């Protein structure tokens, strides 16, 4: 797992088919993610997510709109998309975060795993984005990993 990524999972007492519908259908996406969703669950589809002021997870004062592009859609198994890239730009690793859902059928339900990576890429300003692009080798991931290790070692020292 890259260091600027977050992985979470949950066990859901429902079939993968039902879970698939909830994570990919626009009318469902607007019930767990944004306040409004305009996106098709097919590969390459571009859409938008919209959060109303004071709505779910949005900023209090202003409406938030985030573009989304579906990267993978393998029914009942995998769904991934890039989001938070600048309006009109093609999403890639330098300007957007990648969200990957994996559905695993288990006795009594579905284990749903989500991995969001490239989180550091979405809040950069234009200048640092360019610099990020120029620097594939010495990636942010490596750096952030060291920061986290550093914090962990400090925390460890403090509790000894």
């Amino acid at each position, binding site marked *: 797992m890259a260091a600027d990524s*977050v992985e979470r999972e949950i066990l859901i007492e429902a079939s993968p088919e*039902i879970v698939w*519908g909830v*994570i990919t259908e626009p009318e469902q996406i607007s019930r767990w993610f944004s306040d409004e969703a305009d996106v098709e669950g097919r590969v390459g589809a571009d859409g938008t997510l919209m959060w109303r002021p004071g709505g779910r997870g949005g*900023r209090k004062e202003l409406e938030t709109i985030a573009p989304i592009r579906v990267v993978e859609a393998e029914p009942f198994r995998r769904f991934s998309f890039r989001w938070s890239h600048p309006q009109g730009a093609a999403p890639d690793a330098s300007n957007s975060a990648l969200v990957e859902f994996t559905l695993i059928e288990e006795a009594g339900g579905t284990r749903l795993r989500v991995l969001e990576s490239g989180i*550091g890429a979405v*809040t950069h300003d234009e200048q640092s984005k360019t610099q990020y692009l120029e620097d594939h080798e*010495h990636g942010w991931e490596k750096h952030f990993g060291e*920061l986290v290790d550093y914090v962990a070692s400090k925390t460890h020292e403090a509790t000894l």
Partner: protein
Amino acid sequence: MTATAVAEDDALWAAVADPTRRRVLDALLECGEASTTTLAEGMPVTRQAVAKHLAVLDRVGLVAGRRRGREVRYTVRPERVDEAAEAMARVAAQWDRRLARIKRLAESVQAEARIDL
């Protein structure tokens, strides 16, 4: 999250998004404490450039400088690094909330489907 907190996060990410600044931070993490001159020795940039990067890092609070005789020695500030880690924890918490909503939605659809059978 308030607009101020968002702006502060952005400044923090922007500060560490620069490759040379990451290299400066990495070097400081390795040696614990170093002067601008010492840091510049191991890098393909001028001492002036290193000084500028240190100023940016200082501004967002990632490093702190302390005067030792004629030179200023820099160290990484762990509490600010902690905040960067917290920003990641916030993302994780957001996904936990979203997953919980997905679970609730899917399980209610499943319950309805069972009634229909």
